[in-house]
């Protein structure tokens, strides 16, 4: 522990020194200001994700502004709340684009909102970088729409392959949230991946957003004795499912497999011991040894008193991706130039990994499969 503390202190010290020297050396050339809009769900059903997204981006912006002289760019964020509703999302986009005149919008939190709001940005010729939109077709809206979030379709097939290879599962039970776009999309991805791997689905059970009791579905599943339990859920429901499954006596030898939604420290915190050995296909590897990532996790935990989740990581990465593009765009208020620069982001070192955009402006980097060991996520395979 003390060793880690020491490393942390040194890192902070070094960062300070670097920052100061940077500021001194470029004190004369004042940095250019980039106005970035954030449309996040700070209230409403998705408030939990909007909150960590705001934290993640806040952290990145503070880091960048602290060494603005060195980066040559200073970021002025405009945070707005889409209240988890498409209607509000549209209003917020209009404001950010036409009143605040931001150069790019990061967000919105929910795919449903993105489906409507992103069209406004596309029409106005302003780039959007989605950080948690996983529904299919979001980037098909137009050539100004990007995302750094891997979709369930990109994450899940790999997960199923890895798990199948390791455990040789033949028949599974599938449990998913059927009234939420994200969990429904995850369900589709799982179903396809399971079919491709010729794994039999014994039963498909669903639940609704906000449900906390899953005993009826899990009892049904338990009675069919599957080799594995495959779950598409967001973390609130996921922790309940995991702990109730174990409590109802679905044995630890039956692995529980989840997607992006499971990739949050809350899972371990709220499901406790039951979360051991849960397998998570994810777009961000918390335990990655990448120093950038290590630094992010440390700084975030120090600043907000809780470890980051995938939403925070994707938001954090997004700010750096935009920064990278802004530097190459040669201007901080030219939306078209920024769009061009974004398409050329390639092999950028981020907390998510080596990041590029695909031709279709989707995220392109390797997903991971994690598992919970001794109360922490560790890599299971890639």
């Amino acid at each position: 522990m003390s060793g880690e503390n020491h490393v942390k202190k040194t890192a902070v010290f070094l960062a300070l020194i670097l920052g100061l020297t940077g500021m001194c050396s470029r004190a004369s050339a004042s940095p250019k200001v980039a106005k970035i809009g954030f449309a996040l769900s700070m209230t409403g059903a998705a408030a939990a994700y909007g909150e960590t997204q705001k934290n993640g981006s806040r952290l990145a912006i503070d880091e960048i502004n602290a060494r603005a002289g060195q980066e040559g760019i200073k970021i002025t964020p405009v945070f707005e709340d889409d209240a988890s509703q498409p209607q509000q999302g549209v209003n917020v986009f209009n404001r950010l684009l036409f009143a605040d005149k931001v150069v790019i919008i990061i967000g919105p939190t929910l795919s449903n909102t993105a489906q409507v709001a992103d069209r406004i940005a596309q029409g106005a010729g302003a780039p959007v970088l989605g950080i948690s939109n996983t529904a299919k077709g979001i980037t098909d809206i137009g050539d100004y729409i990007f995302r750094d979030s891997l979709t369930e379709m990109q994450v899940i097939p790999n997960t199923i392959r890895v798990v199948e290879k390791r455990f040789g599962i033949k028949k599974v039970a599938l449990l998913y949230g059927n009234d939420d776009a994200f969990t429904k999309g995850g369900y589709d991805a799982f179903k396809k991946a399971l079919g491709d791997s010729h794994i039999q689905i014994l039963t498909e059970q669903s639940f609704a957003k906000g449900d906390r009791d899953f005993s009826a579905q899990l009892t049904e599943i338990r009675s069919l004795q599957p080799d594995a339990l495959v779950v598409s859920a967001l973390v609130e429901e996921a922790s309940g499912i995991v702990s109730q499954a174990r409590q109802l006596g679905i044995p630890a030898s039956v692995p529980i497999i989840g997607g992006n939604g499971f990739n949050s420290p809350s899972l371990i915190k709220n499901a406790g011991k039951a979360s051991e050995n849960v397998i998570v296909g994810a777009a961000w590897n918390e335990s990655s040894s990448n120093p950038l990532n290590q630094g992010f996790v440390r700084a975030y935990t120090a600043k907000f008193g809780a470890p980051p989740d995938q939403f925070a990581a994707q938001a954090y990465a997004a700010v750096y991706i935009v920064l990278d593009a802004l530097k190459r765009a040669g201007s901080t208020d030219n939306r078209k130039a920024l769009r061009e620069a974004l398409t050329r982001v390639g092999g950028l070192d981020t907390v998510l990994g080596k990041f590029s955009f695909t031709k279709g402006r989707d995220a392109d980097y390797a997903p991971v499969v994690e598992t919970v060991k001794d109360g922490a996520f560790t890599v299971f395979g890639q």
Partner: protein
Amino acid sequence: MKLPADLPAGAASRADRGLAIRLRRRAAEVVALSEFFAVYGSLINFAGLNALLALSLYVPLSAGQLSLGNAAFAGIGAYVSALLTMRLNVPFPMSVAAGGCLAAAVAMAIGAPVLRIKGIFLAMATLAFGEVVRICAVNLSITGGAEGLIGIPNKTTAVMIYGALAATAYFLTALRWSQTGWSFASIREDETAAMVMGINTTRYKNVAFILGAFIAGIAGGLYAHLNFIITPAEFGFSAEVQLLIYNIVGGTRSVFGPIVGALILTAIPEALRAAGVTAGPLRLGVNGLILLLVILYLPNGLSSLFAKKR
């Protein structure tokens, strides 16, 4: 919109210069106006649609029936019209009308058993109906499930929304003075007294319910063709309650109450932003406080602020 900033410098005469200044000012106004519409255009559209939806609830309320199923009727209208335009290439006005009619037909079917229930119990029954409709939309494949129906052509314009709103408001004002309108008002005041006065209360309650559903269905169709995507969640419990809030905050004594309520409440997030209230929990809280103050201090709703004193 380009500013005529570089007018010929040689235009030296005073008149010319005056004209140039006027032109420039005018152009600046045009720019400001177009900017205003760029920023607030969708807000204006949503406000109009919310007002239309609020009116759809006003109709049963004006006949004393507390329905919480109008968001569901809007959902039926939205899905039906969107599916008709997308799958069967039905012309837009016809598909919207069909959405309204189907919503009215469903209202007719459930009205007979449900409208025998009174007061808060009717509210619960219609709410339960709304939930069933929402869950159907979540589970059916034709509606696109939870991910929603995506790719609805964008056909609705502000003119249509406000045209529909004005027509509905005009119709309802005229209705107020008709046999039907008086019957609604009598039932709302005292159903028993209305009965012995010769009013077929069952029939008029149904008329109010069906008419409300029709308006909601039309509003839903317009909403669907404004937004490119519709999802079941938009027509759920909180939407139902929102419509009731528009009515109570605006006042249900006249057609203008719900309209005023919807317009003002839709604009509140923008107003709070302009007032510098930061986004997030604080804005939510202030929103709640405003609602509370209106209910406590304006018993007849916001519209009583604008009404002339008797």
